Each structure stands twice: as structure tokens, then as C-alpha cells.
């Protein structure tokens, strides 16, 4: 009896794992609302909805978000792809209305130049410091 209970507990992680798998497949089903004749368009749709941020939920992309606004914006992406618009045209449409914020991969501009350049400035500073330390240590060895 004791052994049976033990084996049931052993089985629990597998049960949880399969439950997770099931729920994952239902989550996927939501995304498949949009049907594409051309697999290339579908690829571009997935790429664009991953690149665009939901303005309402802000830390989710359009692909992950099921807010009403995201659904509207996804519908627009779908329509525009089928109408033959380029990725850049679609991104520009979104940018015109919601600003650069809607791009998950922000472009370099004045307001964020420091943020982009920061790591390289640090690298140079640290590299320079290390080099000076190395030089002074080498001098000590020579003495």
C-alpha cells in the first residue's frame, strides 16, 4: 500500500508535464486564427507580430497579447500583408500612430543614443583601465 502511494507521487511530475503540454497546444490554437495561402506571408505575419509591441499591455508583443487592441492591430497586419504591403510599410503605419515605442527593437535616435553607446563606452574605459594596470604591473616585474 505504501509503495503504491509512493509510485503515484512519482507519477505526479509526468501528469503535470502532460497537463502543461495540453495547455500549451490550446494557447497555440489562438494564434492560428489567421490563415494564409502563402506560407511566406505567414512567416512575415509571425515576424511582424513578434516585432510589434502591444500599446495597451506594453511588455507583450502583438503575438503574445490577446487584448482587444492587439487583436485589432493583428487584424490590420493581416489585411495589409494580404494587400501586398511591405514589412516596412506596415511598421511605418504602426509607428505613425503609436510612435517608435511600438517597435520592440528600437531604432537609434538622439534620446537613446547614450543607452546604445553606453556598453561600448564602458568597454573602452574598462579596457583602458586594465591596460594601464597591466603596464604598471609589467614595470614592477621589470624592476
Amino acid at each position, binding site marked *: 500500500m505504501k509503495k503504491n502511494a509512493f509510485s503515484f507521487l512519482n507519477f505526479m511530475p509526468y501528469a503535470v508535464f502532460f497537463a502543461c503540454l495540453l495547455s500549451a497546444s490550446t494557447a497555440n490554437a489562438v494564434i492560428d486564427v489567421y490563415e494564409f495561402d502563402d506560407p511566406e506571408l505567414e512567416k512575415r505575419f509571425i515576424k511582424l507580430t513578434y516585432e510589434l509591441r502591444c500599446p495597451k499591455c506594453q511588455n507583450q508583443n502583438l503575438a503574445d497579447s490577446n487584448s482587444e487592441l492587439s487583436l*485589432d492591430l493583428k487584424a490590420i497586419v493581416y489585411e495589409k500583408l494580404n494587400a501586398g504591403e511591405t514589412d516596412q510599410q506596415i511598421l511605418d503605419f504602426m509607428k505613425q500612430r*503609436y510612435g517608435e515605442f511600438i517597435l520592440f527593437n528600437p531604432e537609434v535616435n538622439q534620446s537613446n543614443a547614450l543607452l546604445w553607446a553606453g556598453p561600448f563606452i564602458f568597454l573602452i574605459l574598462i579596457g583602458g583601465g586594465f591596460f594601464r594596470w597591466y603596464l604598471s604591473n609589467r614595470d614592477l616585474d621589470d624592476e
Partner: protein
Amino acid sequence: MSESENKTPNNRTISAKGIIAVLLFLVFVVTFYFLIGQDKTELPSQLINRSAPAFSVKDLHDPSVTYTQDVFLGKITVLNVWATWCPSCYVEHPYWELHAKNKDVVVAAINYRDDRKKALKFLADRGNFFQWNLFDEKGRLGIEFGVYGAPETFLIDPLGKVRYRHVGVVDTDVFESIFVPMIERIKQEQN
């Protein structure tokens, strides 16, 4: 005595480095305070000082009436974006009765992603203070305006340019402190 003399210059170089480090640290603190201290969840409108988007949308009350962006011309318009599914809109609605008393502006609205029946019942129950109400059933007009949540309120000048967008409830305080000074400025520009 000679020992303490030897130590002093050493101490001084350390403290000079320390001062630089502290200054650098302060520069970072100040920079990040201004970068991060802002409320980044509020998105700036892309339409400020630009023409309101072109549209052709039906009236909420009378579907045979269609409005275009020309409706803004010649008047100062305070355009509220609202919906019956928006909890803050219930809080905001009574304030529109007060704002509508301002003789310098047309108080109008976009009923955003809503159900016509529910919207009409809302206005019948709580009073209709909007001179006209656009019925944006699918939310496409909202997207043209860059709306990302209701309530939002736009101030549009007589040339049809968007001058300001407020996200959230426009209560008496917001109206008096933000909208009224801007309305006065637009009036002065006209003269």
C-alpha cells in the same frame, strides 16, 4: 613625523579618485532619475501639431449621418474617446456636463469599440453632453488616432490640428489646469 608626511599625498590621490567616482555616480543617478522617473506607460501622441486623421464614420444616434475630419474646421473641439466597457468612463462622464458649459469649445466624442444599444442606453441614463458622437464600432478610427485605451481626450484646433491628448479621466482639475489654458492660447492665435 616623516611617516605622516609620506601618507598625506597618498591620501590625497585616493580622495581625488573618490571625488571623481562620487561625481560619476551622481551623474548616473541624475541621468537615470530623469530617464526612468518618467511615467513611461503614458505614450505621447504622435498627432500633436499634426492634422487629425482622415475618416468617414457614422453618427452614433443616426446611422444615416456620416462625419469626416472636416467636422473639426472652424471650431475648437474637445474630443472624448469613451466606451461602456470602460470603467473610468463612468467616473468621467459627469464631468462632461461641466466641461460642455465652456462656450469656447465643442464637446464631442468617439464611442470606441462599443455596442450601439449599450452606448445609447448609457447616454440616455446618464445624460448626453456631446454635440455629436462618432460610432467607431470596430475601433479603426481609434487606431487612426493612436488610441490605446479609453478614456482618452483630444484637443483639436479650428484648423483641424491635434494640439493635445490626455490619457485618463478629464476631471475639473485636469480641464481647468491643462485644457483651459490651451484653449485660451488657440483663441489668441485666431485673433
